[in-house]
């Protein structure tokens, strides 16, 4: 947008997706799927939101899980384009399936 819109109206809803806030990250969360019980607590508390809930049958089946029946549940995936690395997911994960490591750039 080059010209300031009348009344500073922003006509395009949700266009903040153009800001890739993932560059802010100092620490990076990594999900270990073999431990993840797919409880969605990380998804629930992600402030960006940068944790996606994937409800695709193929993804659900092909993603590793600690127990076979858990593969019926949606999978969480971190969107590193936006994850600022706050670590709430790492702190709240009830089964310590999320590792929090220093970002390497």
């Amino acid at each position, binding site marked *: 947008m080059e010209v300031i819109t009348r009344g500073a109206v922003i006509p395009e*809803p*949700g266009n*903040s997706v153009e800001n890739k806030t993932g560059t802010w990250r100092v620490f990076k969360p990594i999900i270990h799927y073999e431990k993840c019980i797919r409880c969605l607590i990380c998804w629930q508390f992600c402030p960006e*939101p940068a944790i996606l809930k994937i409800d695709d049958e193929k993804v659900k089946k092909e993603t590793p899980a600690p127990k076979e029946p858990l593969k019926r549940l949606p999978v969480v995936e971190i969107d590193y384009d936006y994850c600022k690395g*706050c670590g709430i997911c790492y*702190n709240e994960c009830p089964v310590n399936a999320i590792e929090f490591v220093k970002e390497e750039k």
Partner: protein
Amino acid sequence: MSENYENMEFFAPGHGMCAGCAAPIIVRWILKLAGPNTIVTNATGCLEVVTTAYPRTSWRVPWLHIAFENAAAAAAGVEAATRAKGEKLNIIAFGGDGGTVDIGFQALSGMVERGHNVLYILYDNEAYMNTGIQRSGATPWGAWTTTSKVGNANPIGKMRPKKPIAKILAAHDIPYAATANPAFFQDFKKKVKKALSIEGPKFLHVLSSCTTGWRHDPSKTIEILRLATDTGLFPLYEIENGDFENMRITYKPKKFKPVEEYLKMQGRFRHLFKNPEYVKKLQRDVDEWWAKYGKYYCP
């Protein structure tokens, strides 16, 4: 309200909230529960500034930036307009503690007195965080801020208690006034849904931690918020139609944690540990509150 929009995001990423801020968690879920037929008015504050850095916005519902003092007045106008047009929409006003308990208070009081069908959400981070951590009416006793500095002349920080804003709103005899905490997620969701289902003015006071102003590690946001209620410092209750006799405390910890556990995780309370009397005073306040109101616990 019949449809479920929980899998949709009406709050887009790419906003400039600090890492670990609790406010976007609150907003994200309120929008999910309200759904797309919603118009938001937003008082000046962190939320407004960082979600709409021109020419970009994080909002996927119609959103209006309102000055510090009149988010509730503008919401009232929007509600009156939709009513005149015969449209049924959720009108939600968001304000921080500065924009709600101090600067925006008269507009809020007027809006609820006129009986507008508006849900007002206070996300309370307990100081003017956007402008650099100045004390507000919602800052608790003993908190350090840049205008309640701690030193030899004042070893306490803020010397006045927090304004009981949910009770003040309930005293307007509005259909619904409640406190909520995103760390108590089911309780929080239930209150938002209940508020949205009620006709008339509704007020929700939601506690929201601030990594910068509370001085804590960003990953501890939810943990600290959980402690705020588990120590009894931030009780969760609801009051309908100003009926204080039947107020309901919706959550009571099985075993209260000592207030130290909440205080020691935050830099803004660090000075209180220099004198054991300060921590004891806060513990006494909590104990007195629960001795007085604990009987209203009704899960």
